């Protein structure tokens, strides 16, 4: 496992995090999805595309506002029952009952559908209530959240229940399942959790996070000849601890697949995606994976420190982006294992969602301190390298600082960043140094990841006690899962819950809405490109380099291409003879 990550919670219900932080991305990718398959599987090669072969259902069919989901009749639970329409309705009903889960929103499932029903044993239909909707968006960002649940789970401590038919029964069922999920030591023996439709069953999970999985012999999905039969996940306390174990093949606990700290990777030759291994890892092969994510640092457009109007100015955002040395960070602390972020849609892996225009033009705002100085000087600022720039021409006309920026306003900002990731800390220090050269003073504050995220998503000027003092915040990346489509409604639309800095402009909102309303895939692609072509140049956030994950696999173990959603699939791994 990656340092700090471990399996903690087995119940694969995304709304199941009421008062519990344990249901993490590690649980979804490295535990739950291995036992309980989502209705639709995303990950085709390295791309985050719907994979019809692995999915439990055929690609959804849309007739007007009705969507039809046809489950494959070949899929079985390990107790012999079929994975059928009732299992999907069971999930939908529980979602309707548990409205305070983290993935529930008033605009998402199940609020945006009605008349959910099992039309036949293997067919589910539901009516989409939105007057306009994108089929691509609904499949990739709504239906993607569903994980069918077996009828064996439709019960409480006192016996069978009927959540599948009555939403009112679901809260009690959820409470029972959640309470059972708090007994970690019983995961391997529980008759509830032993009913799986995925390729793995839990043998044990101890309080230190060591997870042992056994291959589910009754798995009915696609199988790989010669696949492994036991899969053990070992937690690590630090990157260095995992690297030490990788380097010691005689240790009492050896690992066949592990993570290499970027700082320990030799820099690859120019133009090469993969370089050599450290000499101490000659028994291993180095694999380079990029997650389906976007790396950025939001400006806080709602900060109450008086500096927010500066962020509203496009010239300032252009100047500030010019101080970010993405290539320098990639070649420096990332040891060559990174890609620059060039717009609001991740450009690696290169997907069909990325605007060809943006892909062709690449990074338009490479490091240039002189460009930053010129932009500031041309817009009313006195530029004082290694000092502090101040606004000397207040006003809204040409050559003036902009609305609500008073004369004498200094370019001084606070920046909170997450500790514990070496390359990111180096990147922040380098940005601060570059900014200082252009007369912008950054006050850096290192905080835990949880604190930074808590602050960044905790600013709401309308709420008493809300902390809106932060101006720039860096914690890492946004991973597109289980909403796989990089539409702007998640991160960039005004009022979106994950729009940390609350970038909010009419034109951007309209263009995002166009993507959500685009009915056909062709219309969707066109509107996605139009939106990106506009927003990329608006620099709504500070684009940061995207780091790769370096995975070491012992020689002779073939793990194939890992999908960028990072859901691991050891059922596809096999040892070469």
């Amino acid at each position: 496992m990656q340092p700090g990550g471990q399996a903690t919670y087995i119940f694969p219900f995304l709304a199941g995090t009421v008062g519990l932080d344990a249901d993490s991305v590690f649980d979804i990718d490295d535990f739950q999805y291995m036992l309980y398959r989502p209705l639709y599987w995303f990950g085709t090669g390295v791309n985050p595309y719907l994979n019809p072969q692995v999915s439990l259902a055929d690609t959804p069919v849309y007739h007007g506002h009705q969507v039809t989901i046809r489950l494959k009749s070949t899929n079985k639970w390990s107790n012999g029952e079929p994975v059928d329409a009732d299992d999907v309705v069971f999930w939908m009903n529980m979602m309707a009952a548990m409205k305070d889960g983290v993935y529930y929103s008033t605009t998402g499932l199940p609020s945006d559908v009605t008349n959910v029903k099992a039309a036949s044993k293997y067919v589910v239909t539901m009516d989409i209530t939105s007057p306009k909707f994108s089929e691509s968006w609904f499949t990739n960002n709504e239906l993607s959240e569903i994980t069918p649940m077996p009828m064996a789970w439709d019960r409480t401590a006192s016996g069978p229940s009927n959540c599948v038919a009555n939403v009112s029964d679901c809260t009690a069922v959820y409470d029972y399942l959640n309470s059972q999920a708090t007994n970690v030591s019983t995961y391997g023996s529980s008759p509830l959790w032993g009913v799986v439709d995925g390729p793995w069953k839990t043998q044990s999970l101890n309080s230190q996070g060591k997870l042992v999985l056994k291959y589910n012999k009754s798995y009915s999905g696609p199988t790989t000849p010669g696949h492994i039969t036991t899969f053990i996940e070992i937690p690590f306390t630090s990157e260095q601890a995992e690297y030490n174990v990788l380097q010691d093949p005689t240790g009492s606990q050896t690992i066949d697949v592990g993570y290499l700290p970027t700082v320990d990777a030799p820099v690859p030759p120019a133009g090469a995606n993969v370089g050599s291994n450290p000499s101490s890892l000659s028994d291993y092969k180095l694999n380079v994976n990029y997650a389906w994510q976007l790396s950025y640092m939001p400006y806080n457009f709602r900060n109450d420190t008086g500096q927010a109007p500066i962020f509203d100015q496009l010239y300032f955002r252009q100047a500030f982006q010019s101080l970010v040395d993405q290539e320098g960070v990639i070649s420096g602390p990332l040891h060559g294992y990174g890609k620059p972020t060039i717009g609001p849609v991740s450009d690696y892996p290169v997907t069909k969602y990325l605007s060809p225009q943006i892909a062709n033009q690449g990074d338009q705002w490479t490091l240039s301190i002189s460009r930053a100085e010129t932009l500031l000087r041309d817009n009313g600022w006195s530029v004082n390298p290694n000092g502090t720039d101040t606004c000397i021409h207040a006003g809204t006309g040409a050559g003036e600082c902009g609305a609500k920026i008073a004369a004498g306003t200094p370019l001084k900002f606070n920046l909170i960043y997450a500790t514990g990731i070496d390359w990111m800390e180096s990147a922040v220090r380098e940005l601060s140094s570059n900014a200082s050269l252009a007369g912008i003073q950054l006050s850096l504050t290192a905080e835990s990841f949880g604190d930074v995220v808590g602050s960044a998503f905790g600013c709401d000027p309308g709420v008493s006690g809300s902390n809106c003092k932060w101006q720039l915040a860096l914690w890492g990346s946004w991973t597109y899962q289980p909403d796989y489509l990089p539409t702007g409604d998640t991160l960039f639309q005004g009022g979106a819950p994950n729009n940390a800095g609350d970038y909010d402009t009419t034109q951007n909102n309209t263009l995002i809405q166009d993507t959500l309303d685009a009915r056909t895939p062709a219309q969707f692609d066109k509107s996605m490109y139009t939106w990106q072509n506009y927003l990329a140049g608006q620099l709504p956030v500070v684009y940061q380099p995207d780091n790769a994950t370096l995975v070491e696999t012992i020689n002779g173990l073939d793990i194939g291409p890992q999908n960028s959603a990072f859901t691991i699939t050891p059922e596809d791994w096999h040892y070469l003879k």
Partner: protein
Amino acid sequence: MTAFLARRALQAIAVVLLVTLIVFGLTWVGPAGAAAQVLGTGAHQEFLGAYLGWLGQVLQGNLGRSARLNESVGSLLAASLPRTLVLTGLSTLIALIVAIPVGLLQAVRRSSATDHVLRGITFLFYGMPPFVLGSVLVLFFAVDKHFFGAEGPQAPGIIGVVTDVRDLTLPVATLTLVTIAIFARYMRSSALDSLAQEYVEAARARGAGQRRVVLQHVLRNSLVPVVTLLGLSFPQIVGGALVVESLFNIQGMGWQIWQAAQNHDFAVTLGFTLVIAVAAAVGSLLADVAYAILDPRVRDVQA
């Protein structure tokens, strides 16, 4: 002596209660949800009622649940405490066995070549971060020579940890070397003070040999500040163990409390802090007892 012990025990209990009050108070005024996480459904009580309620739960052995790890704090303690106890206990014991004679030898041979060499070595380990020292040991003894394991024991329980000598050696050695340096420097300083005392001169005047003077008069009196340091150093040793635990993949007390603090896992933070506070108070109490045994004047004056 009994009154002395009773008074010290009451003081220890008061210290532990004060620590719990402070830590609980911090969760109360901390980020939203902290108190609720610790208290469960009782988050809307008044502070004192909530504190007493939590204390009552603690006295019944219920330290709450980790929201992050989906485990009871008790089970996390049961898993991590043996590792830290073995790691810190063994390293402290070995450190004392080595540091006391080293410090004594340095004092007796003050300003000699032996003193200078030993002082240089102890300074080296005193100033070396455990992370660097541990990494060097791993690279040489585990990665290069394969003499010992690169990570700490992973077996559950004290027996499993203690019997895994191959994996236990390097983390214990790392913590021991750092701790030796601390104790040896205190021992040297303390022994130098003792050597300058009149009773040492008197013993020598009475014809006592060097061996008898050092072992019978200097050693016993020099141990008093070292014992005091030992009693109070448990939290520091746990803190130092955090780095070693992180490097050697040991989910011990230090690492768990650090993770809990980083991730706002307040029940774990509170529960583990309580255990460390109790350990520190008990350590201090034992140090006082040892102090009284070593120096009868203490109990006579304070009784």
